Structures are given as C-alpha cells and as structure tokens.
C-alpha cells in the first residue's frame, strides 16, 4: 500500500471537488442580480396573457421600471405555484387569478393589498369581489359552451343551447371539457353547472359521464386538440369563452362573414380576472405603479383585440369590430363570492370523486 501516493491522489481529488463546487457556487451567485441596476419587475401571468408587443414601453419611459413577463401555463397552475411559494414569490406582480380561484389565493395570503389610483373607474361589480383590495380587477369575460356551427349544420342537428340539453343522447360523445381541478375555465364551467342546476348538479355530471363527456387536462388541449373547429379532433362542443367565436373571425385570413362557432348564452358564467402584488416582493413601490398601469386606459384598451376579454376600466373604449362580433350575455350565471370561498374545495372534491377516480 503506497500511503504517500494515496495521500497525494486524495488531496488532488479533494481539490478537484472543491474547484468544481466553487465553480458551481460562483455561477449560481452570478445568476443573482445586483441592486444597482434599474428595477425590473417580473410579471407572472398565464399563457393567454398576450398584450401587444411593446405595450410596456410607455410605462418604462415614464417610470424607468422594466417589465419582464413570464408565462407559465393555465391560471390554475399559476395560482397553485403562487400558493406554494407564498411569502417567497417567483415574481413581483401576478396577473390572472380569477374569481373562481381567488379564495384559494387569499386564504394562502399570496398578495399584499393595494388600492389603485384608478379605483373609481373600475367596474363596481368586480371591485366588490375583493373589497379589501388584496387584488385589483383587470378584465372580465364569460366562460360558455361553444359549438361548431358547421358540424351541426352538416348533420342537421340542432346545437345544444342549455346545460340540461347536453345530457340528451343526441349529444353523446360530443363534449370536451378542461379539467376543473387544473384549469380555470374548467372550474368556471363546473361552477356554471352548480349555479344552473343547484342540488342536481352531481346528477347532471353523472349523466354527462354516461353521455361520454371527455375530460382533458387544459383548455388549450380541449380547444386546439379536440375541438372540431380548431383542430382535427372529433368533438364539436367545447368549454371556452364567449369571445372565442369573434377570435375565430378576427384572426382568420380571409375573414368569414360570420363566426364559424357560437357560444350558448344560457350556459355562460361571468368570470373576472385580477392582478395583485405578491407578498414578499422586494419592489413593492414599483409594483404598485405597475398595477396602476395595468388598469389604466392605455393598457385596458389593448385588451379586447389581443386577449379577447372585456376591459374593467369603464372609461376604456372598446373597438367597434370587437363589439360587432361578440356576445355579452346579459344575465350570465353567477355564484356568490362567499359560496365559492366556502365550497370550492368540497365541490372540486365531489367532482373528482364522480369523474376522475
């Protein structure tokens, strides 16, 4: 046994390990920024957050604050991550928690309250949903059943107009929905069935299960993966937004004279989206200014044609073509904020028992 040689080899080995470890640590530290640079706010949002490129330029010019947008999946995923990292957030401001998910985020103390300067310009119905200003409303929309008009016309079948109608054998194996547990429009749809059917909502879902409803993981999977009007799938009925039909028109080239899809107004649930400052952010003052910008006219007027939602700022003007093609249900289904807060978990649990296990 060559002790000396072994000792040398050991020393060399240890040195190598320390060198590698040191390199790793150094690279990690380098990844963290210094505090001398101008502030960059991180805005966490879901995948549907697609404002016009450069919309934040005026904000940066005015305040000197840079905005970096980070998209990570569905609103459901977004809120889950926020809940998991409450107090030690991955960003500064979060856009996209909606009224169906709000109670979960508030319970976990994800946000710090802030009353925006534009508070009085905002839709009062939306404001009442967050009276303590933990979050600020930013837009609204309606989650509804959408159907492929051409598909039904070809087969001379009347499209479904109500939730109850969907349980008919005529519509067997035709509906695809995103999973309410993981998807925000999915959850909104579940709440719509509860709002519409009251105590019979579980029976309705049982019948839907027997009638071949397909549950997929996300809205984009349902819409772009299975909806006949937007993919090579085989389901002509999907849960989507009241503004999806106009999107089909406005984004199409050449533009059709009328929308190829339609939303069933009697199945719609009003959905409000909010933005908030994440608790634990190191740039609270700057974050407040971003919130103000997000509900300002400049930003709000960009919303209809980029994200196909309605602005929450009453003073913002909505483009004519958006008004031409869209449907704003007058009396959408609603569920009280208190009811959602109390029962959301239990309803989801009951849904899971019925449909997912």
């Amino acid at each position, binding site marked *: 046994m060559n002790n000396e040689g072994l000792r040398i080899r050991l020393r060399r080995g240890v040195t190598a390990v320390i060198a590698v470890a040191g390199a790793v640590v150094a690279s990690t530290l380098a990844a963290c920024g210094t505090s001398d640079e101008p502030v960059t706010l991180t805005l966490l949002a879901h995948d549907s957050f697609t404002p016009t490129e450069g919309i934040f330029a005026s904000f940066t010019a005015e305040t000197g604050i840079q905005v970096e947008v980070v998209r990570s999946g569905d609103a*459901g995923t977004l809120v889950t991550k926020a*809940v998991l990292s409450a107090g*030690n957030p*991955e960003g500064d401001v979060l856009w996209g928690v909606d009224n169906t998910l709000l109670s979960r985020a508030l319970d976990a103390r994800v946000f710090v309250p802030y009353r925006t300067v534009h508070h009085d310009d905002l839709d009062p119905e939306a404001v009442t949903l967050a009276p303590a200003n933990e979050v600020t409303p930013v837009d609204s929309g309606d989650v509804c059943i959408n159907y492929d008009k051409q598909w039904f016309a070809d087969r001379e079948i009347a499209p479904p107009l109500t939730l109850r109608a969907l349980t008919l054998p005529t519509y067997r194996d035709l509906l695809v929905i995103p999973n309410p*547990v993981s998807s925000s429009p999915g959850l909104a749809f579940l709440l719509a069935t509860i709002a519409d059917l009251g105590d019979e909502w579980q029976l309705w879902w049982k019948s839907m299960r027997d009638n071949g409803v397909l549950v997929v*993981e996300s809205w984009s999977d349902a819409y772009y993966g299975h909806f006949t009007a937007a993919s090579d799938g085989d389901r002509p009925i999907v849960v989507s937004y009241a503004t999806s039909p106009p999107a089909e028109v406005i984004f199409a080239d050449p533009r059709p004279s009328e929308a190829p899809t339609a939303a069933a107004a009697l199945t719609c649930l009003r959905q409000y989206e909010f933005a908030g400052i994440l608790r634990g952010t190191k740039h609270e003052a700057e974050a407040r200014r971003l919130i103000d910008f997000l509900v300002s006219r400049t930003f709000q007027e960009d919303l209809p044609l980029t994200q196909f939602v309605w602005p929450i700022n009453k003073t913002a003007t909505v483009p004519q073509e958006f008004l031409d093609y869209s449907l704003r249900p007058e009396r959408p289904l609603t569920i009280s904020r208190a009811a959602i807060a109390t029962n959301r978990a239990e309803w989801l649990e009951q849904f899971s028992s019925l449909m997912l*296990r």
Partner: protein
Amino acid sequence: MMPRLTAAQRRERVTTTRVSQAAIGMVVVWFAVFLVTPLGVLVTQNLEWADIQRVLSDVSTWRVVWFSLWQSMLSVAATFVIAAPVTWLVGRYEFRGRRPLRALTTVGFLLPSVVVGAAFLAMLPRSMHSSIVAVVLAHAYFNVAVVVRVVGSRLETLDIRLVEAARVLGASSPVAMGTIVWPLCRRAVGSAAIVIFLYCFTSFAVVRVLGGPTRNTIESDIALRAFGIGDISGATVLAFLQVALIVAVVSIVQRAAGREPSHLRAAAPSPEALPQRVRGLALLVVTITSALIAMPLLAVFWRSARVGDEFSLEGWRAVLTTSLFNSVMASLRTAILTGVLGVLLAAATAFVVVRMRGLGRVLDSASVIPLAVSPVTLGLGLVVTFDESWYDWRAAWWFVAVAHTMSAVPLLVRVLVPAWRSIPSRLHEAATVLGASEFRRLIDVDVRYLKRTFVAGLGLAVAVSLGEFGAASILSRRGAETMPVAVARLLERTGDLIRAQAFALASLLIVFCVGALLVVESATAGRRHAGNR
C-alpha cells in the same frame, strides 16, 4: 495463524468507533431534518381525525387504490413477459453485443418519465392516447431493465448444469425448471417484481401523460388533492395510506420469495457461448428488443429537428441560446450535487449496515423508506415545512437536490452494501495488524476497493436526479426549473416551435442520461474484472 490483536484493537472492535459515530450522525441528521420533519409537519399541522375519516370513507378513494394496485400488477406481469426472452438470452449466453444490449435496456430505465410519455404520445395513434394499454406499455418500457439486470445476473451465476443433473435423475425439462431453476431464481424474481411494482404503483408522470385526467393512481391523486383542490390534509392521508400499502405488499412478496440459499458455489460458470440452434432466435430477440427500445428515443430526436412538417433546427437553437438553457444548468447543478451528497450519505449508511449488526439491520430496512414515501409526498412535505424565516429554503438552488438525494440514497445503498460485504476481511485484518487506525483502514482498504462502486453509484444518482419529475415539478422555481419540468411545461403548450423546443430539450436530456449510464457501465464492468482476479 493470524497474529493476535492488541487489547486496544480489540476494544476498538467492540465499542462504536469514532468513524461509525460520524457516519451514524450524518445519516441520522440528514433523515431527521429532510425526511422525518417534513413528514411530521404534514401529519401534525395538516391532519385531523376528521380528515382521515373523510378520505377513507369515500368510495372513490378505494377506486383509486384499486386502480393503482391492478395497473401496477398488470404492469409487472407485462414487464416480465416482455423481458423474458432478452433476460434468458443475456443471462444464459455469452455473445457479441450482449453488453450493449443490456446497456440499451437500462437506458429505458433511466429515461425521464416525461420524455417517455412524450415519446409514446408521438408514436401511438390518437385512439391509444388515454388508455391503460399505453400506460402499461410505458411502464414495461422502463422496467425491462430491472428484470434483465436483476434476474439476468442471477441467471449468470446459476449453474445451469444443475438442470442436467436433475434430468438424469428422472426429471423432464419442465419439471427440472420448476424444481431447480425456479427456486434458485425466486428471490431475484421477487426482488425485481418488488422494484417494478414500487415504480408502477407510485407512477405519476406516465399515468398523467398517457392515462388522461380520469385515471389516477394514489400518487397522482395526492397531487390532485394537494395542488389541484388545495386539500393538503386529504393528500396527507392518502400519502400515508400509500406508504402502508407499499410496506404491506413488499413484506408479502419478500416472505413469499423465501430465503436465499446461504451461499453460491465458489466459481460460477461463465455464460456459455450461443449454440447454433438458438442463434436465429437470438438474433430475432435482439433485433426486436433493440428496435422497441430505440424507437421512442429516435422519435424524440426526430421530432426535435422538425417544426411542423419541415426540417428545422430552431428548437435546438432556442434550447442552446435562450433562457431555456438555464434549465440545462439547473439540471446539471442539481444532478452533480445529488451525486456527491448521495454517495456520501449512502456510503455512511452502507458502512453502518455492513459493520454494525443490530443497528445495521435497522438502517438497512429504514433506508428503503424514502422509496415508499413517494416523490410528490416528499416535495409536498418539503414545501410546507421549510417556508418561513431563516429556514425558508424553497428558493434555494440546492433544495431540489435534497429531494433527489432522498430518492437516490436507497438505490445506492442497495448497490454499495453487497459490494462492501464482498471485501475480504483478511484485508482489514492485515491492515489492523499493521497498525492502521480505523479511519486509515477506511481509506486504504474500503474506499480503495470500492472506488469503482462509488463511481457507479455517483453515475446512478446523477441519472436519477436528471430524470426526476414528481418532486422537481413542485420544488423547481421559475428560471431554475430542471429539464424534465421544463419539457413538461413546454409540452403543455401548443405550437409547432414550442413542440420542437420541448423535444430538443428532451433529446439533450437523453444524451445526459446516456452519459451517466456509460459511467455506471464502465465502472461496473471494470469492477467485475477486478473481482475475478
């Protein structure tokens, strides 16, 4: 006759020495802080009797349990059926291409579940996308390697000429197989079956990707409850139910497998050369198996260079030059840390297991517990425990490695203990007589002898970390997501370019895993040669 030990040396043997105290200390602190505490927090802060009643009295809970049980048993059976030809071939015969073939099956084992899920989605027709068949096939894909390695190695050391002896004594071929080969393989088969069962029972990514939202194992239901619904208590109940079930099944199978004959005859015959009559069949088996294993991998590489229907390297460019590259660094960083920590802890554990009989046995059984506590539960526990003040480590760059190390240590201990046990005691005795202290002995004899095993363990831990998904998906932070998590996130979105990026990242992941695997293979091969001297 060996020279007698001095009184000091004899004393050293009996009491727990400084080295073993350090080893025990390290292991105990590690498990106490990062396993017991999180589990304790889950139980004490999130669990009440009402929750237990609520979850256990719900029929759908037991539907999930039943599903987990039968799909994993089906997967075990399917794996054995699919692996049988290759295992027999590799275990019985020596032929050119035997080692590459065995290595190829192991690639399947080390591939990240997300990658395999994505590859299967790419290969299978849409009608099979949310099906139990896809899930079972994917499970078999991973676990063929377990059968090939565990049962195959047992076959290698099996003296097949015993079958000849049995036949001359009046046993027909099937009877000889049943009375001679099967009893001698039973333990290895049981061992392999347990490992496969564990992986399939706690399957998460595969069931999610290939089974659809309506199929849930206990593991994915834990995630559903904890993160989808926000019901941490219910998730905790399920987590412990899962642990209990795993322990029960493992005990049953281990008892049924019986005890290993206490020795194997000294020089096990080396596998014989491939006889003529079997050659054609062997070629068929080798070709089909290689093709089946390679196909998903090739599918991933193929898709990485296609945007839509055209050839394009945009996906690769994005992975290598944009912020996506951060995930590569995050994965490598985490994997290396896991490797180092894993080997250290596993070595300490193995040291105690081998050297100290009573405590060693306890530690041997205890070291399997992290495997029973699933990755999702572990991640959940870590997140709800270390979330305040000075111990809020959720954003720490090394946090993910903690979870990975916890999963890797049981595997490494299983590899290290037999190797450590095989160190001839005369080497220690000689060193002791020459006056070496215990620490000195550890370095000069044990570490030196086990150098290659440590390297193999390092490679294994790195591979495990690279591919881990469950815990990483919970613990990864934006900007520092590991590669599997980044791939899954990309796959959730739509768009041809996004797809290409996802598959490019997945391809890179495959390359890294194969690299780690090669390290393991070369280290193991070298050791075998050294051992035969």
